[in-house]
């Protein structure tokens, strides 16, 4: 249908077009070249366990989320001589993969990496090591003495093959939150074993229907209950290897406990952040197993529970289990870039932000991973007068996080939310969905390149 009517004018245009086409090809070739030369390589020195870029003066680029903005600003205030470029981003919230996306692009262009990054996810090491982004920290950059002062196991999610690639900002160990006046009013004792916990749950259902001993409706529910129960659903055994077994006794007995209480309606399946919970169940909380940050983020801020009401106790244990264990829900991490041209300043910042009591002890919203800072932080919480008990249960729990549950590249929370949660809404039992859960974990792990065993 095109009209063929060649004229001298057209000849010239097509000649020009050919030239333009050639130019494009050249540009494309140039792009391809840039794409292949992924960063660094020239002029690096091997030191502290990695090839370091030539060091230069200049501003230190720090990426933080809105909450950690205060930390960076405080550092600037206390260290006016340091040139800081503070960039705020979403902190990789909800697995936004922002950091990973940008690092992939920077790896292609060979520049642009931030020097220090905060991430609200604790599984960043699972890709940041492969991507050549995270610098090893225990090979010279950060003294062993400093690293030793973190709570036991705090930096496990950051450790790949014995090398530490990030530092934990805060811990999210699970404890048993409780409503002290209500417990007293009902005349109940705090359960110390899961058996007692279940019995109490059934009793509450009978004596005070509507009141709750827990919630199982959040995406991180498995990390509170099944992790604490030592369920082998997520045992990272190597850099790219995981063992998944959801049918072990540790899994089934906890799932059964939850099913019983859910049937009794003393365990909610709404999720503590849902509007349903806020509207209908906020004042019905008697007990609530949950991570360290529940105290502030859930009770104080979201549910607006009055002061002197909420206390924290150790999470129940299975009867006869000699090694107490608990789960963990999140907790941010700080990473340092291998490509940094200001390693000294970057290391200074990293060390300060994770260990200095000026921030971690006094300002940080979450339970500090660094043990001495945590002491100071707990004192501050006690002094605030909000809680009905001291928070020493948090400190005890901080070193009891079971190490058989790892931080893979795939999101356990997303898998649970998409696989198990819809079934719970339809009234299926958790026990009946354990096989489907396992199948889903295996599929996601395999598609992320993990070798899966069971």
């Amino acid at each position, binding site marked *: 249908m095109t009209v063929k009517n060649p004229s001298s004018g057209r000849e010239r245009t097509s000649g020009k077009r050919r030239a333009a086409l050639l130019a494009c090809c050249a*540009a494309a070739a140039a792009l391809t070249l840039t794409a292949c030369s992924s960063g660094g390589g020239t002029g690096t020195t091997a030191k502290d366990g990695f090839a370091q870029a030539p060091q230069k003066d200049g501003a230190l680029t720090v990426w933080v989320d809105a909450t950690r903005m205060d930390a960076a600003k405080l550092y600037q205030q206390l260290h006016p001589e340091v040139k800081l*470029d*503070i*960039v705020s981003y979403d902190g990789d919230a*909800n697995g936004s993969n922002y950091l990973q996306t940008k690092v992939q692009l920077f790896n292609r*262009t060979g520049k642009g990496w931030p020097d220090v990054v905060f991430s609200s996810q604790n599984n960043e090491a699972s890709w940041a090591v492969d991507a050549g982004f995270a610098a090893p920290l225990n090979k010279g950059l950060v003294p062993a003495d400093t690293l030793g002062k973190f709570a036991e196991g705090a930096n496990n999610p950051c450790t790949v093959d014995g090398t530490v690639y990030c530092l934990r900002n805060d811990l999210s160990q699970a404890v048993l939150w409780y409503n002290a006046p209500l417990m007293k009013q009902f005349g109940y004792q705090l359960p110390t074993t899961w058996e007692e916990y279940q019995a109490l749950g059934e009793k509450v259902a009978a004596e005070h229907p509507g009141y709750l001993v827990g919630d199982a409706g959040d995406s991180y529910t498995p990390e509170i209950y099944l992790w604490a129960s030592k369920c082998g659903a997520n045992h990272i055994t190597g850099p790219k290897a995981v063992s998944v077994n959801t049918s072990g006794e540790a899994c089934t007995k906890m799932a059964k406990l939850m099913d019983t209480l859910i049937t009794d309606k003393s365990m909610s399946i709404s999720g503590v952040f*849902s509007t349903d919970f806020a509207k209908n169940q906020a004042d019905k909380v008697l007990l609530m197993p949950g991570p360290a940050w529940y105290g*502030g983020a859930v009770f104080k*801020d*979201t549910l607006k529970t009055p002061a002197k009401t909420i206390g924290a106790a150790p999470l129940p244990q299975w009867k006869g289990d000699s090694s107490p264990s608990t789960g963990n829900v999140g907790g941010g991490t700080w990473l340092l870039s291998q490509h940094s041209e200001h390693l000294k300043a970057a290391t200074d910042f990293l060390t300060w932000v994770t260990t200095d009591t000026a921030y971690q002890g006094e300002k940080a919203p979450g339970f500090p991973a660094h043990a001495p800072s945590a002491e100071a932080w707990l004192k501050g919480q006690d002094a605030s007068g909000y809680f009905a008990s001291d928070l020493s249960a948090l400190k005890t729990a901080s070193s009891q996080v079971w190490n058989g549950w790892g931080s893979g590249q795939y999101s356990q929370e997303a898998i649970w939310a998409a696989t198990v949660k819809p079934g719970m809404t339809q009234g299926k039992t958790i026990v009946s969905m354990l096989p489907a859960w396992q199948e889903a974990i295996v599929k996601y792990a395999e598609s992320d390149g993990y070798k899966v065993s069971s």
Partner: protein
Amino acid sequence: MNRSARRPVRRLTSRLLVGVALAAFLVFFVLPVLWLLLAATKTDQQLVHGNPLSFGSFRALGDNWHALTSFQDDAVMLWLRNSALYSVISLAITLVVAIPAGYALAMTEFRGRRTLLIATLVVMLMPNATLVVPLFLELNAVRLIGTMWSIILPYAFYPFGVYLTYIYFTTAVPKDLLAAARIDGCSEFRVFWHIALPLATPVIALVGFFSFVANWTNYFLPYVMLPESDQMPIQVGVGTLLSNVPSFNPAVGSLAIERPQLALATLLAITPVLIVFLFAQRFLVSGMLAGATKE
């Protein structure tokens, strides 16, 4: 007699049906927006416990405004400014580039016209996810990463507008009109400037409006391209706010932003679009061609 008696009844029922249908759709489109408007006047507690369609209080609205503007030292205003800057500059480039292109594709014959139409359509249909990496590398190669041009230039490429113009001219402007002008000795440029362009007011308004909205609401490109947080446009800003609301991101840890504040930010984000719409709508109503066309 029977027929003529039934007729008004039928017309009445048909009118009623039309009225009901339009009203139903009106509720569908407007109710969520109304809810959003009211949400900004409530406290977080009221949002959950109160009647969904009740007014909160001006006091709460004021508090929300205060809390929102104090987020990262008035970052919201900065985001709005950035959005306006990016959207307006790329809108200008889009109009200068797309209108003549759409006109030429519709009203003139040149070699490669069909190729151009096909190429435009094909790139318009390409999923975005994989284009980001090439775009980033390309802009890096010409050293534009980090500047506002890294998003303005990709925004300015607006194939959708080229097609709108193209279809407008092929369907609404008779070719004879231009042919007559050409025979009268007008140069191609004068034909375009003095005859085609005045006839194209509705489509210019349409392209301008859609381009502005597309630029204003784009999230992913600035999210990936821009390295500094003070370069972010409002859409990315709203995303940041969202990730600071505990119900959308349980792990955020401390309550920085409450849902009514997010609602308020959303309202701020859409207001410019609605103003531009009202402005553009004045030109969209045309009918100016009705007389000129004789076919």
